[in-house]
C-alpha cells in the first residue's frame, strides 16, 4: 500500500461520503456540501496521479480548472437556493413539490 493507493482510497472515501450526503439529506445546503466533497475527491485523484507521471502538469491543471468551476457552481447554486427560498419559504426539498401531480 504505497502513497498513491492511499490517495486514491481517500478520494474514494470522500466521493462516497459526498454521495451519501446527497442521498440522505433533504436540506439543499447539505446537498451542496455533498457536491463539494465529490469535486474535492476528483481533484485529489487528479493531483495524486500528476505526482506519478514524470514532468506532466495535466493533473494539476485539470484540478485547478475544477476548483474554478466548483466555485462558479457554488455561486449559481446558492442563487438558485435563494430564489427557491423566496418562493417557497423553505429549503427542505420534500416540501418543494409543486411539480408533482
Amino acid at each position, binding site marked *: *500500500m504505497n*502513497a*498513491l*493507493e*492511499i*490517495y*486514491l*482510497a*481517500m478520494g*474514494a*472515501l*470522500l*466521493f*462516497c*461520503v459526498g*454521495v*451519501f*450526503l446527497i*442521498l*440522505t*439529506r*433533504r*436540506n*439543499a*445546503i*447539505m446537498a*451542496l*456540501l455533498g457536491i*463539494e*466533497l465529490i469535486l*474535492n475527491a476528483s*481533484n*485529489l485523484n487528479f*493531483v495524486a496521479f*500528476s*505526482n*506519478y*507521471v*514524470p*514532468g506532466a*502538469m495535466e493533473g*494539476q*491543471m485539470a484540478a*485547478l*480548472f475544477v*476548483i*474554478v*468551476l*466548483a*466555485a*462558479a457552481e*457554488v*455561486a*449559481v447554486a*446558492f442563487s438558485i437556493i*435563494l*430564489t427557491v427560498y*423566496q*418562493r417557497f419559504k423553505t429549503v427542505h426539498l*420534500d416540501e418543494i413539490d409543486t411539480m408533482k401531480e
Partner: protein
Amino acid sequence: MSIGEIIFLAFVGATAAASVWLAFARNLITAAFLLFAVLILVSGLYVFAGAEFLAMSQIIIYVGGALIVILFGVMLTGKLREHKPKSEMVNLLPGILVAAALMLALLFAIKESHVGQLVPNSIPLENNTEAIGREMLTNYLLPFELVSVLLLVVLAGAAYLSRKQKRNQGEVKP
C-alpha cells in the same frame, strides 16, 4: 517510518475522520465547519503530492469563497431565529448501502489496477508556480479564456437570479 510519512498518515486519518463525521452531522453549522476542516486537510494532502500552488488556490478559493457562500446560505435560509439549523437524515439504510457498495467497488478497482507499482516523481526541476503559469499561458490558454467567459456568465446569472423580487401575490419570476 520517517516523520514525513507519519505526518502524511496523520493528515489522511484526520481527513477520513472529518469526512465520516460530516456524513452523520445533524447540525448545519457543524457540517459547514467540518467541510472547512476537510478542505484544509485535503489542501495539506496536495502539498504532499508536490502541488503547492494548488494547495494555496484550494484554501483561497474553496475555503475563502465557496465555504463562505455556503455559510451565507445557512444564515439566510435556516430560519435561525426559531430553531437551531439542523438537517435530519432520511433513507439512512439505503444511503449507507449505496455508499458502502460504491466504496467497495472503488477500492476493488484501485486494488485490481495495481497502481502500487508506479514510482513517484523525483524532485521537480522548476518551481511549481512557474510551471503552472507557463502551462496556463501556452498549452492551456483556451481553457483559461473560456473560464474567464464562464465566470462572466456566472456573475451575470447569479446577480440576476438573486435580485430583489417585487411582492406581487408572492409570485417569483425566475
